[in-house]
């Protein structure tokens, strides 16, 4: 339940933070009573406007003038999955370089401009998207958005900066290669989607990144950033009339079309158990099997089922069995990963080397029990209460609202969804759960990657390579 605040200012942390290929479920819903109140009470309705610029660029806008700030979140769909295998990591390097000088400004001048405005711009690449975030005081919206345009449309990609940024990316990959959590996650994705871009980390590999040159970065820029793959959310002290022309100014200079995305792939997990020997006192485990796409009609029942099995943390079956009853782990959780091109149902935990085998057996047992018996009416009701009640917690603050607005677009949902979603969760029945448990949970296919020195773990023959 707690993370003791150990000396957090550790230098390395700045370098080590780089996301694994996994993307947690886009939908993290909330209680029936609260939900009812939420739907009925006018203060709790979230009214989202869809703003289209004269040039045809669309953004979702939630206008709120309480605080004089504006937040923009954007997602260029495609992301690192557009990288050819031999230049894996190029899109990530490109994204990392967007702040390193653009137009007339070199990297230092660009950073100094942002500091003078007290604005922030962030760019990052994941497997499915290049993500952009901008935050500014309302008085500096135009200047900040102009810097955003400069970064997106006129990046310099200078040789000097490229070499340095590449070196940082490689350093971060080297750290990841020695981090048990990253090893587990990356190995799991590589097993799940062999011969697919999802098998590679979004940041690439040490070998591919070391070989990246300016042409690769320019090519990634052309592939990844365009108007046709752009989703936009804007929240704060700005109205539609002000926003619409700004959208054209910032994004109008991008090419019309992005590169074609790879085909989706089926998860190729069939019950393997892979052990990666690593000298640490506690084994780190990634587990799971095929999931369910976000646009599947059974997604919401699956989401509720996951909450009961392992997604809900405290109160979930796995946490009750493995942490609370037996003290085998500090934390175990599961999540649906409905990425654009492939979907997994995954989980993570860590457990002492001499106890991890017992924990794995318990995961298997809960998986099998839930697959066979489903969940109880009481569990369903508790899950619905939590999921509907907690939905409002995702909307207290501009930054949270912006990320919800973007998440809804990524999931392909409409602007009204936010006001309808709790009813969808409440409508889930035990029959729905039974159907989706049957489709989703496959104890035979449940696969494990274990990094550590686990004792008494039987690895499967299927895992030989």
């Amino acid at each position: 339940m707690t993370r003791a605040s150990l000396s957090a200012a550790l230098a390395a942390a700045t370098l080590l933070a780089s996301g694994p290929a996994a993307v947690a479920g886009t939908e993290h819903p909330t209680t029936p009573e609260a939900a009812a109140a939420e739907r009925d009470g006018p203060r709790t309705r979230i009214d989202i406007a869809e703003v289209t610029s004269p040039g045809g660029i669309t953004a979702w806008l939630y206008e709120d003038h309480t605080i004089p700030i504006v937040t923009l979140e954007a997602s260029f769909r495609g992301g690192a999955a557009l990288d050819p295998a031999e230049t894996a990591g190029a899109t990530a390097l490109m994204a990392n370089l967007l702040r390193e000088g653009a137009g007339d400004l070199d990297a230092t001048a660009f950073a100094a401009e942002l500091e003078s405005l007290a604005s922030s711009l962030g760019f990052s690449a994941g497997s499915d998207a290049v993500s952009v975030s901008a935050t500014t005081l309302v008085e500096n919206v135009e200047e900040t958005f102009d810097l955003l345009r400069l970064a997106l449309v006129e990046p310099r990609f200078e040789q000097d900066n490229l070499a340095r940024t590449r070196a940082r990316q490689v350093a971060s990959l080297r750290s990841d290669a020695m981090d048990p959590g990253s090893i587990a996650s990356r190995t799991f994705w590589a097993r799940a989607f062999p011969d697919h871009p999802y098998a590679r980390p979004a940041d690439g590999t040490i070998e591919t990144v070391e070989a990246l040159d300016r042409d690769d970065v320019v090519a990634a820029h052309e592939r990844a950033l365009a108007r046709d793959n752009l989703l936009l959310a804007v929240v704060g002290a700005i109205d539609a009339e002000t926003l619409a022309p700004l959208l054209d100014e910032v994004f109008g200079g991008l090419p019309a079309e992005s590169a074609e995305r790879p085909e989706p792939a089926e998860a190729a997990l069939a019950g393997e158990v892979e052990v990666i020997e690593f000298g640490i006192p506690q084994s780190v485990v990634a587990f799971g099997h095929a999931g369910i796409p976000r646009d599947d009609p059974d997604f919401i029942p699956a989401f509720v089922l996951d909450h009961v099995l392992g997604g809900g943390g405290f109160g979930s079956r796995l946490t009750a069995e493995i942490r609370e009853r037996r003290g085998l782990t500090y934390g175990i959780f599961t999540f649906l990963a409905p990425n654009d091109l492939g979907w997994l149902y995954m989980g993570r935990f860590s457990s002492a080397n001499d106890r991890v085998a017992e924990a794995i057996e318990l995961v298997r047992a809960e998986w099998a029990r839930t697959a066979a018996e489903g969940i109880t009416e009481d569990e369903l009701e508790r899950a619905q209460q939590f999921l509907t009640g907690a939905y409002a917690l995702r909307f207290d603050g501009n930054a949270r609202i912006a990320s919800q607005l973007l998440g809804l677009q990524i999931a392909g949902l409409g602007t009204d969804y936010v006001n309808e979603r709790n009813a969808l969760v409440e409508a889930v029945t035990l029959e729905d759960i039974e159907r989706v448990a049957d489709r989703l949970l496959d104890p035979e296919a449940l696969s494990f990657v274990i990094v550590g020195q686990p004792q008494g773990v039987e690895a499967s023959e299927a895992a030989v390579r």
Partner: protein
Amino acid sequence: MRLVPYAFALLLLPLAPAAAEEAAPGDGPDDGIATFTLANGLEGVVIEDRRAPVVTHMVWYRVGAADDPPGLSGLAHFLEHMMFKGTETLDEGEFSRIVRANGGEDNAFASYDYTGYIQRIASDRLDLVMSMEADRMANLAPSPASAISELDVVIEERRQVVENTPGGVFGEQRRAIQYLNHPYQRPVIGWMHEIERLTLDAAMDFYAEHYGPNNAILIVAGDASVEEVQALAEQHFGPIPPNPNVAERERVAEPPHIAARRLEYRDPRVQNPYVIRSYLTEPRRPADQAEAAALTVLADVLGRGITSVLARELRVEDDFALDTGAFYGDTALDLTTFGIYVIPNPGIPLEEAEARMDAVIERFLEEGPDPDQLERIKTQIRASEIYALDNLGSRARRIGVALTSGLTIEDVRAWPDALEAVTAEEVVAAARAVFRPETSVTGWLLGTGEATGDGPTDIGIGTEILGE
């Protein structure tokens, strides 16, 4: 079945005179912050923000790992875990189950000077969470069995956050020699051999000594007014009598630091060796924040972003380092640290990295800050006060940390002005005062290659399929 409304018949303790002393809504500037104090000593802080029908509800205790008894490091943190294990009327885990059944999230945290409990929940459930938080302030009653499995959880937590990462171990070792005598030298989570000795009895003794309304701060942020919060606090916390065992926190003091200390930690997993140096110094003090403000600005000047002094010299003008930075812990009850670090490019010996780091600081002490950079930092400090308004949780946390670290609400309010007032001369003076070698700990985190810390070496990592 509904878990929701919860009648508590448990706060029927002898009534302290139910009274609100010095309710002061509307004191101070118009920042939406109001305070009150109950007769039993409980302090209340309310940050009203009506944007969403949600509240963040926290109770902070003025006790933490620095108050762990000798030989029982980790006790404050273990108690924090046990606070979820049931009261005289709530079963093990029921607290969290009820919060969840009401669509809320709950968690807790422990540090050196505080232990805190938090829920985020729909504002019409404030009454419920407050009643349960008041219940476990006075009526904690976990079962011995729950303590045994929870101790295993804490042991796994230690393995996960410390022992499984070289940076975690290194940080712990540095801290242990940063303080010569003060309990800040011990890890919050505890040393493994002492965690293993913790018991439910020890946790309950600690609870009996430190928990109670007169050692607690209630913070509510979000969709609630001070009048509403105060009325609920009277109802739920008001009947709990002050705990007579609560004493002023007087930790053992540091002796004068006379000798600079150095350490070197090697771990085969380290891929990007670095040098880090921290200096013992003062944090913010009540009504005396000028020096801490100067150190805060100094950390930005030296280490924030690529326009900072360290980055400019070691990353922009010279391609020497992967990363550089500076940090200062402005809030602590006792002493804190100011630090700098350099992660050199691969293959560069740490000796050289340390020499370059020292040279940059040396030159900075001569030349002082670039006025343009200082002006930009001030702009960012002003703006950060506006940005901070968006995140209620972090506003509430900042206040909680300050109030449990010896500061007052007035100090919290005065802090932005203190930062604003910092001059270039004060930044240099603060740097001269803080960079005293005899208070410093210099750490090298290295791989197991050359003594100078070069690239990766073989540590026998490989894929192996067991059971073949």
